[in-house]
């Protein structure tokens, strides 16, 4: 059975191109909460220059304009709104998203927790899934497709149910990238079910649940170690009978440390281009960090554009 979709995005350049196509139909809008942040201002002005997204900047207007001047960023066409403090900025950004005046929320110069509190406030109705998780999408020179690593950013130590929700969130992100039935590897230190390894046992149970059709739109297997998950020759030589082995689209980690360290290793040692997204709200929440190179920042906004388009289409279908 051929699971490949001709629209499957395989590289970070594909992500940028696809987002541009979406914004050509209707220019998508990012609302930045606490936009007085140079990395973010650079990212949104670059994104607009490239036709990927427009932005509304909410925050400390004086600082925003000053940063724009100092660093010669063209902010003239952005809508800028003043907010008294970061809490007010987060609230306003979430309100704009709830009112559908923005497609994407972006984190500026404020703690992630402050932003998420506003986004997930019940009165706004923006929570979509039970668990809010992070997906890192990595474009690697030495892998034939995108790798989605989750969760290295939000849930510290997922329990069994949270792990299932993290998988659901990752499936949605991978589907938005044109992978109809993503192949999901539940990462462990071995491929055999060693009764002494609690995470491997958890993975075996989840894989069996998937066999029974309890996880939709995905091919799930585990425990799988990283080499078995990503190297076809290892899967073959060691006769690991698995529809996921050697060709994983998604790597599911058992802790924030595991997800975080793998992503960073793929970036630092594997030369991956990285984009990230927070999943679980009705709109994607995007965050870029100071140390990200410009192409990572651009790709992160592009990813959010693609995922928001996917969520909006899903909503229409529901």
């Amino acid at each position, binding site marked *: 059975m051929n699971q490949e979709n001709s629209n499957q995005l395989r590289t970070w350049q594909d992500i940028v191109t696809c987002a541009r196509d979406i914004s050509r139909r209707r220019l998508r809008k990012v609302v930045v909460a606490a936009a007085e942040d140079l990395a973010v201002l650079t990212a949104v002005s670059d994104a607009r220059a490239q036709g990927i997204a427009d932005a509304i900047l909410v925050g400390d207007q004086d600082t925003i304009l000053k940063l724009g001047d100092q660093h010669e960023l063209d902010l003239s066409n952005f809508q800028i709104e003043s907010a008294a403090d970061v809490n007010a900025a987060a609230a306003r950004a979430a309100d704009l998203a709830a009112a559908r005046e923005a497609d994407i929320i972006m984190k500026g110069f404020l703690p992630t927790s402050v932003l998420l509190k506003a986004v997930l406030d019940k009165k706004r109705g923006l929570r979509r899934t039970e668990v809010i998780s992070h997906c890192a999408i990595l474009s*690697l020179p030495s892998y034939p497709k995108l790798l989605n690593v989750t969760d290295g950013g939000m849930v510290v130590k997922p329990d069994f149910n949270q792990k299932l929700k993290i998988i659901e969130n990752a499936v949605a992100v991978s589907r938005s990238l044109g992978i109809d039935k993503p192949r999901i590897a539940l990462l462990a230190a071995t491929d055999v079910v060693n009764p002494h390894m609690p995470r491997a046992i958890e993975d075996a149970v989840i894989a069996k649940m998937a066999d029974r059709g309890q996880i939709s739109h995905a091919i799930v297997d585990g425990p799988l170690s990283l*080499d078995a998950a*990503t190297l076809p020759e290892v899967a073959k030589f060691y006769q690991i009978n698995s529809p996921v082995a050697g060709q994983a689209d998604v790597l599911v980690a058992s*802790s924030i440390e595991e997800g975080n*360290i793998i992503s960073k290793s793929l970036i630092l*040692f*594997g030369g991956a281009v990285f984009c990230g997204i927070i999943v679980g709200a009705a709109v994607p929440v995007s965050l870029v960090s100071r*140390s990200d190179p410009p192409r990572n920042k651009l790709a992160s906004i592009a990813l959010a554009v693609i995922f928001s388009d996917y969520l909006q289409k899903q909503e229409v279908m529901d």
Partner: protein
Amino acid sequence: MNRLKNFDDLRQLAVQKTSQHGALRLALACAEDPYALKALSKAKALGLVHPILVGCASRIKEIAEKSGVDLTGFEVIDEPKPRLAAAEAAVIVANGQADLLMKGKIMAFEFLEAALHDGIGLKKEHQIWTHVGVFWPQALSRFLLVTDGGVIIDPGLEDIPKVIANALKVTEVLRISNPKIALLAAVETVYPNMPVAMGGAVISKMADRGQIKNAIIDGPLSLDVAISPEAAREKKVGGEVAGSADILVVNNIEVGNALCKSIFIFGQAQSAGLVIGASKPIILSSRSESVDAKVNSIALATLLANREEC
């Protein structure tokens, strides 16, 4: 003495030492493994080891022929059952009939269970066994160690000083004096809701109080801050370790295993892997590491064995 710069340096030193002291006897457990056989034939040609193959003799012969390995000068002990072969190889080493133990085609945990058995005598009191991965990633162009991604599933706080002590035996052979050790986490900030970051803070304070010696230790540190001076600067993390860690200590086997594999698969790093803490060095490289990595591991093991008991 200067640090060894890379694996070429390491092999050269190993060859020099064995040419002075003689080749070491190496017992390969479950020798029906084409990659291990190729590695041993290279190591033998370098004069590093005298191989003793334990496993199914007829299969070993067949696989050697298919892989173009000449078994002249190899001893073969016929034991077709994998677990028994692993135990037999471990016994040979424990008895002193061999100096080094190596894992062949058997699952790591089965191999370790057999070798770790109390009756065999490879275990030492007050010591734990840990895996140490040694890498030379292009992106760093220096040695980087990762521990433990192979033996201990969930090391407790009380284990970490021993995990570190084992890794220090390897840095000593690599001539890295006062190695810098990063206790890896997802963050640099100590968040009370993140037990791994809390653990990193506790261990680094133990080190401050002189409870762990011969190393400079800091944590929690995230991977980028631990090894990249730019990331350390950007995120304003001070200290001696940030940006220049030699050893990365991880909090569980999944993290260590995936980190090691990501470095040699996607970072295309040269590598070596050993289990430290037994009375003799144990060569345990990942199934997907190259033949070259296995030769590196053997070279490193000969240096450790020549150094003293391990």
